[in-house]
């Protein structure tokens, strides 16, 4: 257990708080630019970063053991694959006869 003084902890928590808020502000700005696909690829990673910061510092994920980290990472990778592979397949499979291409 780290033996920080209450003041140090409080300052650190405030820093994290304001950095998450800054990131929220950033994604609102990016959303305002209406960047379509690029926007998605910017906003989601930044949201993940915010979540990561929250998880690591507020939920003390930083102090958990390595196995927990690896398991979470594996879960995240599986989850992302499962989400994007079907989405890609649905997006690029032909839906009307005119969309059939000849390979």
């Amino acid at each position, binding site marked *: 257990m780290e033996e920080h003084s*209450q003041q140090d*902890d*409080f300052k650190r*928590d*405030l820093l994290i*708080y304001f950095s*998450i*808020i800054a990131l*929220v*502000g950033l*994604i*609102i700005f*990016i*959303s*305002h630019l*209406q960047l379509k696909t690029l*926007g*998605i690829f910017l*906003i*989601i990673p*930044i*949201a993940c970063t*915010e*979540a990561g910061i*929250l*998880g690591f510092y*507020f*939920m003390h994920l930083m102090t*958990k*053991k390595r196995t*927990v980290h690896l398991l979470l990472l594996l*879960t995240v990778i599986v*989850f992302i694959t*499962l*989400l994007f592979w*079907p*989405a890609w397949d*649905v*997006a690029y499979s032909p839906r009307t006869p005119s969309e059939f291409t000849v390979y």
Partner: protein
Amino acid sequence: MSQETEFIPYIVKPREDTGLYNAKFGIWLFLASEVMLFGSLFSAYILLRVGSFTWPVQSDIQNVPIGAINSVVLLSSSIFFIRAWVALKADDIAKYKKFMYLVILFAFIFLSLKGVEYYQHFSHHEYPKTSVFLAIYFLMTGLHALHIIGGILVNSYYVGPGLYLRDQNKQWFINRVEVAGLYWHFVDLVWIFLFSTLYLL
């Protein structure tokens, strides 16, 4: 209740090899299942959006300023929770209660702002049945709001009638509050994704 801590080990002190006490282990498992629950709804959102021909520009329908304020509100409540827990560990009950009341107050502020948003939608005849986007928006934020209400109930218990538990076993009470805190931070985490996905994309 000390009979229970004698009967079942690792309620209060953590087990050496896992580094966790039972309730903390349990809440992480519960949070994993919640990730899968909200995750399935996010994946439904993605499949519905990718598979549809047209999708509204979300920031036109949504009230982004209220959403942004709500993000700050919930994040603040998370910080207050941490202060409450730190005060509890330092045996400062007055400070613990003060910060816990702030957590609950901010949770109510969140719900009220959400209520205002829903009311704005309804007065523009924007109901769940109006479009798939609105349907998924109302469902996901509604489910999230139910989780907030659950959190309010638990937090109120631990600053109200549940305080007697602290007299029975101080460390166990601190652990209980810590576990409630993990749940609360998770609710905040889900909101971050909800706001990003349903308001900004």
